[in-house]
Every structure is written in C-alpha cells, then in structure tokens.
C-alpha cells in the first residue's frame, strides 16, 4: 500500500464512525480526522482537501492508496485492501 489510509470524518456522522471501526477491526494502519472538531482554519483546510479529492461535501471521504471512496462502503474497502491500492 503506497499511501496511508486516511478517513475524513465528521464527529456527528454514524457512517464515519462505521468507516473508522471497519479499519480498526481489519487491523490496518489508518489515520482519521473529525473535520468538524478542528479549529475553523484547519477545518476549512481539511474540508477543502476532501472536496478536492472527492468533489463532494458528503462524508465519510476515504482515501485508500490512490483511490477515493465517498461513503461507508465496506465491500469497496475490502476490494481496495485486497488489491493493495
């Protein structure tokens, strides 16, 4: 896996929590940030970064290697992990 898995999340979003739990349960190394809990400047920067990657304001946004997944889609996560994206 070339790049670390990164989860752009919102603290209020149950699907973001599920995405983080999915990677925890898989035992894979990942990073996650609740964008809404950051100070405004940092929150804006991360939200803009997620939007640049996904074209969406909907969360979670999950970066797996070179792929970006919008939403909690465990089957898609499985495929990308198996492919070593």
């Amino acid at each position, binding site marked *: 896996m070339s790049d670390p898995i990164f989860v752009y999340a*919102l603290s*209020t*979003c*149950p*699907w*973001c929590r599920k995405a983080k739990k999915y990677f925890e349960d898989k035992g894979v190394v990942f990073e996650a940030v609740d*964008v*809404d809990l950051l100070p*405004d400047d940092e929150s*804006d920067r991360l*939200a803009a970064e*997620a939007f640049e990657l*996904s*074209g*969406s*304001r*909907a*969360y979670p946004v999950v970066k797996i290697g070179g792929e970006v997944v*919008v*939403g*909690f*889609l465990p089957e898609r996560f499985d495929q990308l992990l198996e492919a070593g994206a």
Partner: protein
Amino acid sequence: MGHEARKGALRDFYTPLVTAMGYKFTPDDELADFLLEQEAVLEETKGAPYCPCQVRTRERDHDMTIVCPCIPFHRAHFDAMRRCWCGLFVHQDVTDPDSLPQIAASELGIEE
C-alpha cells in the same frame, strides 16, 4: 428544552414534509434516534439542524442546502439511492434500509 423534547419536535416537524416528498423516517430506530440527537446538538451549537453527514462551509448558499430535511436540494441523488445521505429518511416503500448503500452523486452521474 432538552434534547429528547427537541428530537421529538424535529420528528413532528419533519414527518409531514418528508411524507409529501415520498419519504419516511428510516425503520432503523436506533439510527434515527442517533441522527436526531446529532441534529439537535447541531441546532443548539451551530444554529440549524444540519445534516450530520455533510460538512458545513459556513457559506450560507451552501449550508442552507444541508439543513434537514435537505431532500429538495439533492432530489435526483437521493431518489436514485432511495434514501437521503445520512439515512434518516428512506423512500416510503423501503423496509430494509441496510440494503441501501451510500452512493456518491458522481458515481450516479449526478452533479451536486
């Protein structure tokens, strides 16, 4: 007003609106309760019951499109998924909300 009372008030407010749009509350009561709790907190802290699963930009034109129920602003996308993004509402004929995955608008060829 505590969150329990506010959650009830939001539910009462939303029900006729989403019914008229062909939607209903998800039959997943635990999910609905969690999402309504988040909306009550967002209303209290950020000024409106924003969608818990869409990010605010603090730009009014955008943020007004994610105030619950935000179905009219994302109609094509949500109709294609038969649910709203956070899953608080599903089409009225849905009995198994777990069968409805989130699908990005871009994957459906829908411009947000």
